[in-house]
């Protein structure tokens, strides 16, 4: 396990550096200049030159790259070009919205998808099994922002049950208000996420149901339900866990759309604004931190899989 962890850590660090380089190049390929975000119509040549010198966009790209790498080596994500504030505290502040949003959506989706997915598989021949599959198919087809807009109209505007958008200015100081602000966004993401998750759970369960060991367990006198719980879940969980990792990671990045619909000042809205303004430090900071989180999630999924399945821990086992 020790060697495994070391190897994973090295891969993680190398992935981060590679991601940083790709980001750096892609951002500079975009047309535009970060200095423009600081200026307005009426600025003269001298002001434009001064602004470019301030953000460093007057320097050759390799000089900018050197500065970026040396900052990165010191874990310094720099200051935003437009707000002139350090990027890292801003990212951490915004994570207090994006992380709860992502995790709560994930948990809710998990609680919806796993039982329904198993039911849809075990009772595939009944009408409700088919119905669950059909509804999940619909859930995959519908865009997330449409569900968000629909929920806002129904729950916030028609029924006046929850706020339509926004997050309290004092953050989590009033937990009730903060939670109320997140309920609709969480439901929006969970609906879409559970739809696709459900299909994975369903097909994993179908695979398990057809497996020899389950037939053997039943032959030894176990009921279908007991056999599924004792042998099926563990086996079915292996592919589902890796999908869960991917789903969690994509939700983290996919929060961009939902944060925009609900005007939440999270990581996604920071990324979007940063790209519009060519605010390189903000964009690089957000993407590096999210890349780190995605890699960590993948890592965690991997570890969980190894805990579940002894064959992954020791390639000799189970043969």
């Amino acid at each position: 396990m020790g060697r495994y962890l070391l190897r994973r850590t090295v891969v993680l660090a190398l992935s981060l550096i590679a991601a940083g380089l790709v980001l750096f190049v892609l951002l500079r390929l975009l047309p535009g200049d970060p200095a423009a975000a600081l200026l307005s119509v009426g600025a003269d040549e001298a002001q434009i030159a001064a602004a470019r010198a301030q953000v460093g966009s007057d320097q050759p790209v390799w000089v900018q790259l050197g500065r970026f790498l040396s900052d990165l080596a010191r874990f310094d994500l720099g200051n935003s070009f437009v707000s002139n504030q350090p990027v890292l505290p801003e990212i951490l502040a915004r994570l207090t919205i994006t992380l709860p949003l992502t995790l709560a959506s994930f948990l809710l989706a998990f609680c919806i998808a796993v039982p329904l997915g198993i039911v849809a598989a075990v009772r595939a021949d009944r009408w409700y099994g088919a119905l669950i599959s059909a509804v999940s198919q619909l859930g995959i087809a519908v865009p997330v922002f449409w569900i968000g807009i629909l929920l806002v109209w129904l729950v916030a505007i028609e029924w006046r049950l929850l706020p339509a958008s926004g997050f309290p200015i004092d953050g989590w100081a009033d937990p009730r208000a903060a939670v109320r602000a997140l309920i609709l966004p969480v439901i929006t993401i969970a609906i879409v996420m559970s739809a696709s998750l459900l299909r994975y759970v369903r097909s994993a369960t179908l695979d398990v149901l057809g497996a020899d060991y389950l037939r053997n367990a039943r032959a030894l006198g176990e009921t279908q339900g007991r056999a599924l719980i004792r042998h099926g879940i563990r086996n079915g969980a292996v592919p589902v866990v890796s999908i869960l990792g991917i789903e969690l990671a994509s939700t983290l990045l996919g929060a961009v759309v939902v944060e925009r619909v609900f005007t939440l000042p999270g990581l996604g809205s920071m990324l979007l604004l940063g790209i519009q303004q060519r605010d390189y430090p903000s964009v690089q900071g957000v993407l590096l931190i999210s890349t780190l989180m995605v890699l960590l999630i993948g890592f965690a999924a991997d570890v969980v899989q190894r805990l579940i399945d002894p064959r992954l821990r020791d390639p000799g086992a189970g043969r």
Partner: protein
Amino acid sequence: MHFVPKLALALGAALAPFAGPALAETDPSAIIRIGSLYEPQNLDNTAGAGQGINEAFNDNVYEALFRLNDDGSVVPVLAADHTVSEDGLTHTFTLQDGVTFHSGDPLTAADVKYSIERVLAEGSKSSRKSSLAPIAGIETPDDKTVVITLKSRSISLPYNLSYVWIVNDAATDITATEDGTGPYVLDGWKRGSAISLKAFDGYWGEKPKNSGATISYFTEAAALDNALLTDALDLVTTIQSPDALAQFEDPSRFTISEGNSTVKEIMAYNDRVAPFDNVQVRKALARGIDKAKLLEAIWGDRGMVLGSFVPPTDPWYEDLTGVDAYDPESAKALLAEAGYPDGFTFTLDTPNYDPHPITAEFIKAELAKIGVTVNINIITANEWYTKVYQAKDFQATLQEHVNHRDVVFYGNPDFYWGYNNADVTRLIAEAEEVATEEEHTAKLREANRIIAEEAASNWFFLYPQIVVSAANVTGYPVNGLNSQFFLRGIEKSK
């Protein structure tokens, strides 16, 4: 020239154009909840904060020597007295008594000198830096007196000083904090979300009619409208589309006010390059577009068609829509005369946000009727600035110009649109150096007539300034000149 207006008179003039009658039972402890689409990028108007900072801070958190009122007039604020020497080159300002900054420091002449120098400093990103170029020196003979000497006369000096926030000279970095003299102090700023302001106890002037404001920022106009619909806001500073207004047409719940903005939708040509260096071609394109129909398509029956770059809130406004009125037949004749009987093709750099793409499609269809082909090239706001404004690498472009009194841009041949008429350049320079407002207005009016006659650009329409508030909220500015939104007069009844 010498004037000492009473403060009360000045405030009266400031509040006169504000909307609505005061309701009987107003609540002075109310916090006004405002929704806006323009979040400032930082809190310093010389550090590239964008138009949002004017909305949130001008005359609310920071005051200036003068203020541009909602009706376009300029009145003294921190300047109690202003005298000008015979030659017009020495301006002496006496400061108001008893003014303190939010930090508790008293206002002195040194603060004023520091504040003006901030705008003129090398790193300043203020769009008004060049208009303060006539300033030769700033002296502070005593704590209450500021003497500004000029290289040349500058009739607009008080107006230009209305853009200069008076900042405490002890405050080193104000990109995330503030130290002004205004009736409100910054209470909190959550980036991407909101700014909250609360009334300043030590304010030198009349107390505001509310105890503070929260300005929430939105990126989606629909989310902004929803927040007002669900009573999460008391008012929104700008409605972006007339379609959204239908939901607010219940007078028992909402008040819709329409004022004159300074936001002008125009097609600017690169007047340096063929065929747009030809006056006849530009006039033909002006006559080939039915602006009334365009305005109707975008704003319904709101807003107004423009005949020049000057909106009605500029003192030198006159109706010039008749100069090149819609007339496709004469447009074709002009094109033939100019040597383009079969028309020509050009590329229109179009910013990717509303209302530019739809305007571009409309123009393309209109100009096709007179034989001119338009290739629409969609670009981002950032690319517009670098490609069009900075590099001047374009044929024609769409843009909304937001500044007040900005016809003077046509007097600068180096400006992005490259309009170069020696008479106009001279008139605009002379206008600044006259002794009276009347001469100033007369010169600029004369310059603007030439600019309109030569169809320097194609001016389409003036955006309406639409504010929607809850029915129990009154006293807000309706025009929002220079994106300002004065909070002190806003009242909310119980």
